[in-house]
C-alpha cells in the first residue's frame, strides 16, 4: 500500500513543550533557531519537545523511540493533552484538539484515545473486571452492558476466568494484559502505549510483542508505541520516529532507518558498539572452573558433570596452571584408582591477559577446549570460550566485561592475600 492512499489519523504540526516560566519567550527563541542551552540560559526553562512535525496513518503501528530524557513520553502525553502543549497544533481525524474545551477533550479521551502505562496503573482496590470496565463506567454505560464488553476484551487478551482476581494476585505479564484489555474496552480508534513492555522481564516482553502484533492484525487500531529498545522498535514498528533531546531526528520504516541513517547520531545509535575500544583477552575471559591437583578423579568428574563441561584445568595450591584433565581419562582413573597427577595432560595453549582478540582468533577457533588466560606467574586468570569471542567481535556487549578483567574487579583481588 503506497503511502498516500492511507487516511491520516493524527497530524502533529510544530508542537513544542517548554517546562518552566517565560514559555512564550522560549517559544519565540525556538522559532528563530536558538539552541536549548541558549534558551535555558535566557529563560531558565527547559525545552521538552522542540517543534515536532509528523503524521500518523490510520491502522499503523507508529513507534516513537529514544533514550530516557529524549522527550518521547512528553510527546505522547501531548496527544491526549495529559500534558498541555506550549505551541503548535494536533489534529485527530481532522479535528483540532489543541483548543478543545475541557468537556470536549474528556469526550475524546473517553471515546477516541486510550492509554496503556509502563507500570500498568491498575486500581488495586478493584477486581480485574472492575478495572477493565472503568472506561465505560465513567461514560455511564449500564453495568450489564459494560461488563459484557469488558469480558470480551479480557477474552481477547487471554485472561478469561481471571475477572474476579485482584491485580496484586497476577504476574507482571498478566497485569499488562489487563491494562491492554482496559484500553480496548472503550473501543478507541487510537492506543497510546507508553513503554508498555519495559517493566516486564525480557522473555515475557517478546511474547507480549508477538501478541500485540496478532491483536493489531485482528482489531486494526492505530497504535502509538513508545520505547527505548531498538529491537522492540524493529520488531513491531511499521514506521519509527527517532528522538534525541526533544528533537525528531529521523522518521522512516525499520529498513529505511537502518539503510541510510540520516546523520552520524543515528548511525552511532544503531551501531551501539564503540569500535574505538580495542578488545583484549581480559575483556572476554570467563571465570575459570579449576580442580586442585591433590583432589581425586571422582571429585574432578563430579565438578565437570555439575558444570556440563567435558574438560577442566588442574591447578596447584597457588592456583598455578599444571594441565588439563579430560572427563574420559578421569573416568578410567576412577576405575583403576589412579590419581589426577597420573592422568594430567600437559598439552594446552595459554594466552596472556592483554593479547588482542584479533591475535587469538585463530588459536581459539582450532583449539577444541577453551583457551586458558594466565598472568606472568602462570596463574589461572580465566578462560576464553569460542562463543564469547564471536559475540564480542559482533559488538554484543553482553560478552564484554566492563574494565577488561572478569567480575572480581570491585573486591580487592585475591592476589593481595600473602
Amino acid at each position: 500500500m503506497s503511502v498516500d492512499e492511507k487516511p491520516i489519523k493524527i497530524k502533529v504540526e510544530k508542537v513544542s513543550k517548554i517546562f518552566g516560566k517565560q514559555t512564550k519567550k522560549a517559544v519565540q527563541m525556538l522559532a528563530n533557531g536558538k539552541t536549548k542551552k541558549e534558551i535555558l540560559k535566557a529563560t531558565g526553562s527547559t525545552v521538552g519537545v522542540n517543534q515536532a512535525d509528523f503524521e500518523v496513518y490510520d491502522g499503523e503501528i507508529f513507534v516513537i523511540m529514544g533514550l530516557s530524557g529524549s522527550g518521547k513520553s512528553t510527546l505522547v502525553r501531548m496527544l491526549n493533552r495529559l500534558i498541555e502543549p506550549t505551541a503548535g497544533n494536533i489534529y485527530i481525524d481532522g479535528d483540532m484538539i489543541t483548543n478543545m474545551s475541557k468537556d470536549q477533550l474528556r469526550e475524546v479521551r473517553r471515546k477516541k484515545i486510550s492509554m496503556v502505562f509502563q507500570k500498568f496503573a491498575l486500581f488495586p482496590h478493584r477486581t480485574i473486571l472492575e478495572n477493565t470496565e472503568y472506561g465505560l463506567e465513567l461514560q455511564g454505560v449500564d453495568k450489564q452492558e459494560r461488563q459484557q464488553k469488558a469480558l470480551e476484551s479480557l477474552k481477547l487478551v487471554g485472561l478469561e476466568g481471571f475477572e474476579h482476581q485482584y491485580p496484586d494476585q497476577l504476574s507482571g505479564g498478566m497485569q499488562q494484559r489487563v491494562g491492554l484489555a482496559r484500553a480496548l474496552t472503550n473501543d478507541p480508534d487510537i492506543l497510546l502505549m507508553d513503554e508498555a513492555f519495559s517493566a516486564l522481564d525480557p522473555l515475557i516482553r517478546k511474547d507480549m510483542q508477538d501478541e500485540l502484533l496478532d491483536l493489531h492484525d485482528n482489531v486494526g487500531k492505530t497504535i502509538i508505541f513508545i520505547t527505548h529498545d531498538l529491537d522492540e522498535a524493529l520488531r513491531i514498528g511499521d514506521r519509527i520516529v527517532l528522538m534525541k533531546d526533544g528533537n525528531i531526528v529521523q522518521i522512516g520504516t525499520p529498513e529505511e532507518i537502518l539503510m541510510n541513517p540520516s546523520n552520524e547520531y543515528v548511525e552511532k545509535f544503531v551501531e551501539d558498539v564503540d569500535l574505538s575500544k580495542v578488545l583484549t583477552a581480559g575483556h572476554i575471559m570467563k571465570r575459570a572452573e579449576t580442580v586442585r591437583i591433590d583432589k581425586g578423579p571422582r571429585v574432578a568428574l563430579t565438578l565437570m558433570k555439575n558444570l556440563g563441561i567435558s574438560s577442566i584445568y588442574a591447578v596447584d595450591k597457588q592456583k598455578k596452571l599444571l594441565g588439563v584433565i579430560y572427563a574420559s581419562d578421569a573416568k578410567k582413573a576412577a576405575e583403576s584408582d589412579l590419581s589426577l597427577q597420573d592422568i594430567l595432560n600437559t598439552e594446552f595453549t595459554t594466552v596472556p591477559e592483554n593479547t588482542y582478540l584479533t591475535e587469538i582468533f585463530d588459536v581459539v577457533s582450532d583449539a577444541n577446549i577453551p583457551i586458558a588466560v594466565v598472568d606472568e606467574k602462570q596463574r589461572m586468570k580465566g578462560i576464553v570460550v569460542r562463543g564469547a569471542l564471536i559475540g564480542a567481535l559482533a559488538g554484543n556487549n553482553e560478552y564484554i566485561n566492563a574494565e577488561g578483567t572478569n567480575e572480581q574487579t570491585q573486591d580487592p583481588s585475591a592476589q593481595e592475600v600473602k
Partner: protein
Amino acid sequence: MDRLPRIPLADIIDRFVDWITMTFGGFFDGIANGLAAFVNGIVTGLGFIPSILLTIIFAALAWWISTRGIALFTLIGFLLIDYLGYWDPMLQTLALVLTSVIISIVVGVPIGIWASQKETVRRIVTPILDLMQTMPAFVYLLPAIFFFNIGVVPGVVASVIFAMPPTIRMTVLGIKQVPADLIEATEAFGSTTAQRLFKVQLPLATKTILAGINQSIMLALSMVVIAAMVGAPGLGSEVYSAVTQLKTGVGVEAGIAIVIVAITLDRITQNIKVKKKSRGNA
C-alpha cells in the same frame, strides 16, 4: 524587655471575643439548642434500652465490625461499668464523644478533601492544625463558654476543636498517598474530578482516614474531664467532682470506666475489617 510598649494582646483578644458574642449571639444559640437536642437525644434513646440488652448489642456490634476478642472485652467491660453504677454517666460520655467525633468527621473530612485538592488550602490548614493540637485543651473552654455558656454544648465544642485535627490531617494524607500513575490513569480515561475522588482517591484513602478517626476518638475521650469543667455531664464530671472533693476511690472507679470505654472504642475502630480486599474466586 519591659521597656518596649507592651501590645495589650490579651485585651485585643477579649474585645474580639465580646464582639463575636454580640453579633453572632443568635447564631450560636441556634447551634447550642441543636447540639444539646442531639446529645440528649442519644442519651435518652440509649437510656430506654435496659443496660444488659445494650451491653449485648454493643458486644455484637464489636464482633461484627472487628474480632471476637474485642467483643468479649466489650461485654465484660460494660457489665463492670453497669455493676459499678456508672451506667448513666457512661451513656452521657458516650453521647458526648460520639457527637464530637461525628462533627469532626462531617466537618473534618470535607476540609481534608478540599485541602488535598488545593495546595494553597493545604498550606494554610496544616500550621493551624499543628497549633490546635499543641495548644492546651483548657484554652478552648474559654470561647466555648462565651458562645455556648455552661452545659454539654461547650463540652462538645471544645472536644471538637481538640479532636478534629487528626481526621483532617489523615484525610489529606490518605488522598495524597494515592500513587501519581493511578491519578494519571483516571485522567487518561476521562474522569471528572468527582469521579476521580469517589471511584479512586477516597476508596484507597479509607484505611488512613479511619486511623485519623481513631485518633480523634481518643482525643475526644481525653477531653471528657476537662469538658466537665464547663458543665458537661458524664464520667468526666464524676472524675472532676471526685478530684475537687478529694474522693480518690470514686475518682479511680470513674477513671476505670473511662479506660474501658476508651479501650473498647480504640480496638473497634482499629480493627474495622475494610471490605475492599475480599478475595474473589480464582
